């Protein structure tokens, strides 16, 4: 069975690996190369801390818990395969979500819900909080420690997933997909700028461009970009030890508000730089460095870690996060185009959710076994149709 995977970001690369492992002949197609867009313009989050237990979002929380566990074994495997250096730079450093005085009650309630679905979330204050993060502002009174939060170096991890797929026979084609090849109402391949590729199934993993790509393939999918901006400092002595963020983060990701929203996410990288994110804006595919989000992120970061005021900012970057109207990933066969499978809409969580998404894709396309529940993410789900209509 031959499967064309469109898009060589983290979702496409992980899906290509899962499909190749299950015995499919995989052709990975991308117009710009591996990890050329969203997967190289993000923080590499593998989080459980930002996943809530509310019924509407609980399926994603469960997917994140499973995926978080998968990343750990996957990283070891990829390291072993590569042999000459880290393949993902997985750092299981844990996360600390903090609240300023007025935000303590909602945060502890949120964490209680998380614990009820199996997320480790320990409320810390006073000395325990300072022991975790000694340079936090004295204004911060309370935090929740999430030992399972982790991060990978996203471009490296994506490259390693793609390389592992290629070692199992997957082929990379650098071309842009222009149209579907259809026979008897079923997709049987794609037309590309480098010629046609026949396939038994097509998996669309084009991130924020998935809506546009779906239209070229005769399908309808409401995936839109949300811009996220990240600030990078010069390398310095390590003073931030976890992923540290304020409790607004959850609101920003889940919100339907088009306007600029920010919440501080501060973390150190192995290179010694500090990454400070992140804003969420609906501005289409505008990647010009905007001033307002940079100022807003800076202000919040300094409120969290006052020492940051004196640190040198080196650059900023922007990436587009793909989101669906109901803010859940879209994973499964297109209801109108048999043979076409979607895997996108992961918003800011694509890196973290990639292994579980890939397992679901192998399940949908090849019938591989999975313990995950595919139902909440199907493209034909009611919440997607209602909002999109």
């Amino acid at each position, binding site marked *: 069975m031959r499967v064309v995977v469109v898009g060589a970001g983290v979702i496409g690369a992980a899906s290509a690996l899962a499909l190749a492992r299950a015995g499919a002949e995989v052709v990975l197609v991308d117009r710009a190369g*591996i990890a050329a867009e969203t*997967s*190289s313009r993000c923080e590499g989050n593998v989080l459980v801390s930002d996943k809530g237990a509310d019924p509407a979002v609980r399926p994603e929380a469960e997917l994140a818990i499973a995926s978080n566990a998968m990343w750990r074994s996957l990283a070891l495997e990829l390291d072993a395969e590569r042999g000459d250096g880290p393949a993902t730079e997985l750092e299981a450093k844990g996360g600390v979500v903090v609240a300023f005085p007025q935000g303590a009650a909602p945060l502890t309630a949120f964490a209680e819900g998380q614990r009820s679905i199996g997320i480790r979330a320990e409320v810390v204050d006073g000395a325990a909080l300072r022991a975790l993060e000694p340079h936090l502002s004295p204004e911060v009174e309370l935090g929740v420690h999430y030992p399972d939060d982790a991060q990978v170096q996203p471009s*490296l991890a*994506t490259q390693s997933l793609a390389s592992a797929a290629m070692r199992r026979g997957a082929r*990379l084609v650098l071309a842009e997909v222009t149209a579907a090849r259809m026979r008897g109402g079923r997709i049987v391949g794609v037309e590309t700028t480098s010629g046609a590729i026949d396939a038994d199934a097509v998996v669309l993993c084009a991130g924020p461009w998935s809506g546009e790509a779906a239209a070229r393939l005769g399908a309808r999918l409401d995936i839109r970009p949300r811009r996220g901006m990240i600030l990078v400092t*010069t390398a310095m002595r390590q003073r931030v030890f976890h992923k540290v963020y304020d409790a607004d983060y959850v609101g920003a990701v889940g919100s339907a508000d088009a306007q600029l929203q920010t919440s501080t996410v501060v973390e150190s990288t192995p290179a010694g730089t500090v990454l*400070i994110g992140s804003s969420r804006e609906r501005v289409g595919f505008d990647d010009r460095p905007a001033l307002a989000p940079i100022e807003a992120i800076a202000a919040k970061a300094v409120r969290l870690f006052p020492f940051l*005021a004196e640190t040198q900012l080196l650059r900023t970057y922007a990436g587009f996060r793909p989101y669906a109207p109901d803010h859940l990933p879209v994973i499964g066969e297109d209801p109108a185009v048999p043979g076409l499978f979607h895997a996108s809409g992961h918003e800011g969580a694509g890196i973290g959710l990639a292994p579980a998404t890939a397992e679901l894709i192998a399940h949908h396309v090849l019938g591989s076994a999975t313990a995950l529940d595919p139902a909440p993410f199907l493209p034909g789900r009611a919440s997607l149709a209602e909002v999109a209509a």
Partner: protein
Amino acid sequence: MSRRHVVVLGAGPAGLAAAVAALEAGARVTVLDEGERLGGQYWRHHEAITDRRLQHGWERFERSRDRIAAGIAEGRAVLLQRAAVWRVDVEPLRLHALVGKPDAPGRRRVVVRGDALVLATGAHDRALPIPGWTLPGVTTAGAAQALAKRDGVTVGTRTLVAGAGPFLLPVAQSLAIAGARVVEVLEASRLPRHAAGWTARPWELAAAAGKGLELAEYARSLLGQRTPYRTGSGVVRILGERRVEAAVVARLDRAWRPIPGTEREVACDSVALGHGFTPRLDAAIQAGCALTEAPPGSPRFVVADPDQRTSVDGVWAAGEITGIGGADAALAEGDLAGRSAAGTPHAALAAARRRRDRTDAFARRLEAHAIQDGWSSWLEDDTLVCRCESVEAAAIVRASGSASRALRLATRAGLGACQGRTCGSSVEALCGERLGLDARPLLAPMRIGELLGGSEATA
């Protein structure tokens, strides 16, 4: 008379000429420059220390400086020095700057609004990586000259000057006047090609009169020191334990590959490297100006129309960012850009255009000194290419084979403190691909705290 407010970024020859021309045309003018003193790299100086023999066209500098001072007195000019412009918006036109000593707290955050912008951001001098080039005693030719001109200081007592292009000559002269012994000047371009470039059109050399005289002067000063000037030669390795003790020099073929068997050791305690210039494009890129096409590692330039307009409405460009052409070209382009930006119609600019066109000959001759691909063959696996992040040549070459641009960025080459300003072109040449290292969202580093608390606006 113009009623426009012309904002000029950069106060080297191009920027000063633009500011003066815009004032002459009646415009209001604001000049922003990162330096402590006007003049840019070309007229880098110190009021008390600088030896006038190191300056060329100094009267022109003084006239420009005085004209701007008069503009300030009339209330038509504003000069912001030590202004680090970190962001350029064009719709509407706004330059965001931090004004004050870069390392001191309390820089003022300023936003300058205007009707027209003249970009005159100049160029960095470029040094190709060479085994041993990180030893103390190795500098760029531009840094060596700046020290000599501004501070009267030399980088050593026996200096080897190597690279490509006529800029090596004033560097050697500056070092000699400041008291160093210049042991050799090595020009990588081969003699036949080099000579053709400089002498095939002698009438053009005569037309660029100032330039011809300058070069003759340099030649005389080298002769006086008995300094050999060798073409088709370059430094291929720098030797020393704690600092420079000697350099290995070799003949280079037309592609700048070292010719085996021609290596010889030259004793020296310092090496000044200059392989041409990299235009400072980041402000133009942020403004959205169209650039020329060029292979990775070769410079691109801002596309300018006959009146120095860029592809972006309300933005002009002059000087080295539109093509490396030296100070005479920069002055003529700045003059034209300043007049045009102030609103002088195309028809009234014919004389300014002719003055600008006469300087093209010198710029064309510089093409004979363009960097050739063979330079990478003198690298060794462990030669540092990106010094900020300590990235070796082999790591960049390894990553260049993959389909992932992200992976090439994962080597961190070009991502350190200098943000690729020093190594970007070399990294892109080794990758065989443009990585976008010169597209910088922040045009200058700043403290995070400097983003807080709003800014002061100047109209």
